[in-house]
């Protein structure tokens, strides 16, 4: 006899999701998850968004997670359902996005027999998740469900997979609420070591040429971390730059903001990083896109590194003060100690540091030659920014030149409004991510700044947008090239454009119409504003084919193998300085 609290594995899954506060899941049904889909059918608390490919489900969940701060949930079937999700899971792992991915599995007695749609899901996803579980009986299922949410969202966030065999979904077991599940081993460190923080504040207070270098860790920590960062940066009067992942944590309109750093960062941000005497890294990880040549990276600075993941500290760059902890907690302590010691930065030194920075800023490294005849991609992003900045706008991107132009020319004032694939660099991320963002924010303006090559990798998700009436805007900077590949071939491979031309492109306007979306095309600078307004005002998904200059390059640029102070600017772009060793780097 079943006790009142006893239910099937599939019902346990749904009950646990509801108890974890889940309102939306992104998924695709199949044989090995039919019992869970049946349980979904019998309830109305959780909305299921049917995607067109499992990779899209994970990216959509990422968009949902990054724009809300809540974990994204994915439900896919066994075998190809799980393997299709792998790119999304790896993307979420690299960018520290909390995702709970439920995969169906063949029945326990069939595991290991090469059954239909069987694959070793936990084996395949072990290196691309923060943790994963194969659930052997319904008895374990409640605990694993609640543990999964705990692991995905605590410490450094990341994706987790729960692999659930079909027979387990039918088995009956007792359900236990989340408050009764405590993880046995996982206790990430949240508070930073106070002695290390004091040492850091001393260094910060004594700096003559300081810079804040912040990253996605601020965003992941939550809105409080962004607020504390703003407070602390203003208190010090120091300049601040950020990684691609950290954009929005500090308002781009502020005068202390130097713009993004790194390979396509601003001249002032990169030179300030190179010449600084104290670097305050909060929630960034010295990625190779940021550091350039590692042995020439900021050679004369004392480095402070705050990270929730101890393995990020001293991984690629040796630092003087490492602090393991959550950004908001550490910032709170830093501000308290700063105030207590009545720290007064060296005004004269700071003034001459700012004068130097202003001289770099005067180079206007994001400048470009605009045209009256042809739409420059940078100009298109600038117009998009001007025409949408006063609205509640969320931006996603694909990967490539358009992504960098978006990061350079679209300016963010708030966290959680910028969704881009930073670590993995996944072409095809932006469209499904926009689906996830729009689901979470139905009334917001959600724009995927895309390239014509990237967007074709997950184009089918426009069908999801049409089905769920999600008015996402796919703003394609169409230059008929895999632009970043073409740019590297021009700069590094003698202009031999090997397979980087986007041949046989669809007519994006007709394609939009074929899907039941709206297609708009802009070919002349003079019509750009009008067409953008038309796009904004359409209450339906839009594919916007913005025909831009085909051969425009993305500058400034630190060539691979070069240091921060060896940038190529737009006006001296004909003199690439890539060494043979640099060519070896990606």
């Amino acid at each position: 006899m079943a006790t009142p609290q006893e239910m099937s594995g599939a019902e346990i899954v749904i009950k646990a999701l509801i108890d974890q506060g889940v309102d939306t899941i992104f998924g695709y049904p199949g044989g090995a998850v039919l019992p869970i889909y049946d349980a979904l059918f019998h309830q109305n608390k959780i909305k299921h968004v049917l995607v067109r490919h499992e990779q899209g489900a994970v990216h959509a969940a990422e968009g949902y997670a990054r724009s809300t701060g809540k974990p994204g949930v994915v439900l896919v079937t066994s075998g190809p359902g799980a393997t299709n999700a792998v790119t999304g899971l790896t993307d979420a792992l690299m960018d520290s996005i909390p995702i709970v991915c439920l995969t169906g599995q063949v029945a326990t007695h069939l595991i290991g027999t090469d059954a239909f749609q069987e694959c070793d899901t936990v084996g395949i996803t072990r290196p691309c998740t923060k943790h994963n579980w194969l659930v052997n009986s319904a008895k374990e299922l409640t605990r694993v469900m609640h543990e999964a949410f705990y692991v995905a969202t605590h410490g450094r966030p990341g994706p987790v997979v729960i692999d659930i065999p079909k027979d387990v979904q039918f088995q009956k077991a007792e359900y236990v609420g989340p408050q009764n599940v405590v993880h046995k081993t996982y206790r990430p460190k949240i508070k930073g070591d106070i002695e290390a923080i004091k040492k850091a504040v001393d260094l910060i207070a004594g700096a003559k040429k300081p810079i804040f270098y912040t990253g996605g860790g601020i965003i992941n920590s939550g809105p409080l971390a962004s607020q504390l960062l703003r407070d602390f940066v203003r208190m010090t009067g120091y300049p601040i730059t950020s990684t691609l992942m950290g954009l929005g944590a500090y308002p781009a309109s502020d005068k202390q903001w130097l713009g993004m750093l790194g390979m396509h960062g601003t001249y002032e941000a990169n030179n300030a990083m190179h010449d600084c005497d104290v670097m305050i890294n909060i929630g960034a990880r010295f990625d190779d896109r940021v550091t350039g040549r590692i042995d020439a990276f900021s050679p004369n600075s004392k480095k402070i590194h705050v990270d929730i993941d101890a393995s990020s500290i001293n991984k690629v760059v040796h630092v003087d003060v490492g602090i393991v902890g959550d950004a908001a907690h550490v910032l709170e302590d830093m501000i308290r100690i700063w105030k207590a010691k009545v720290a007064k930065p060296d005004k004269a030194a700071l003034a001459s540091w700012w004068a130097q920075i202003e001289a770099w800023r005067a180079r206007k490294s994001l400048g470009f030659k605009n045209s009256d005849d042809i739409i420059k991609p940078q100009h298109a992003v600038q117009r998009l920014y001007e025409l949408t900045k006063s609205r509640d706008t969320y931006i996603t991107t694909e990967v490539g030149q358009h992504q960098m132009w978006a990061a350079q020319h679209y300016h963010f004032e708030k966290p959680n409004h910028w969704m881009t694939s930073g670590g993995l660099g996944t072409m095809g991320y932006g469209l499904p991510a926009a689906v996830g963002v729009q689901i979470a924010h139905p009334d917001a303006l959600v724009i995927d700044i895309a390239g014509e090559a990237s967007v074709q990798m997950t184009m089918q998700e426009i069908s999801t947008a049409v089905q769920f009436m999600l008015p996402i805007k796919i703003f394609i900077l169409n230059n008929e090239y895999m632009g970043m590949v073409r740019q590297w071939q021009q700069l590094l491979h003698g202009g031999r454009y090997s397979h980087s031309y986007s041949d046989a492109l669809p007519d994006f306007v007709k394609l939009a119409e074929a899907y039941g979306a709206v297609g708009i095309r802009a070919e002349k600078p003079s019509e750009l504003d009008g067409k953008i307004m038309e796009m904004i005002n359409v209450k339906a998904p839009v594919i916007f084919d913005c025909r831009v200059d085909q051969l425009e390059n993305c500058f400034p640029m630190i060539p691979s193998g070069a240091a921060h102070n060896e940038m190529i600017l737009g006006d001296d772009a004909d003199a690439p300085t890539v060494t043979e060793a640099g060519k070896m780097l990606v």
Partner: protein
Amino acid sequence: MTKETSIERHTIAVLVDNEAGVLARVIGLFSGRGYNIESLTVAEVDQAEHTSRITIVTVGTPMVIEQIKAQLERLVPVHKVVDLSVDAPGIEREMAMVKVAGTGEKRVEALRLADAFRARVIDTTHTSFVFEVTGTPAKIDAFIGLMRPLGLVDVSRTGVVAIARGPEAM
């Protein structure tokens, strides 16, 4: 990486929850990130608590060793990581079974050397011995080296197990 090039050998003890796939996680971490494993041993050490202890001998620069420990610590089922070369100086032992085949003078010499190494004979035929020898990896290397010209045919080694000196638990 920095200019540090000094390669160090470290013995690291890892206490893990004995759940499915935990060894694959540890090994996958080493292969995926390009770290070296000189030896790895694992067995359950507490049945009631379901904990296993993994002993890993690895080599790398100080920066890499620090990375390895941090990466191990962040695996979800890991309870504790102790560097027995730094945090708590440890004692290491390894066991080997060494099969030597031969007759006449070589057979006598093998037995005589085995005695000097306190190796025990655990199997014998008229033409062979299996010795059990315990000690540091260097001692076992030396014993195997001596057996080679005397008819060494097979070796099986456990890999290193290690424990900290003194009264403290891991």
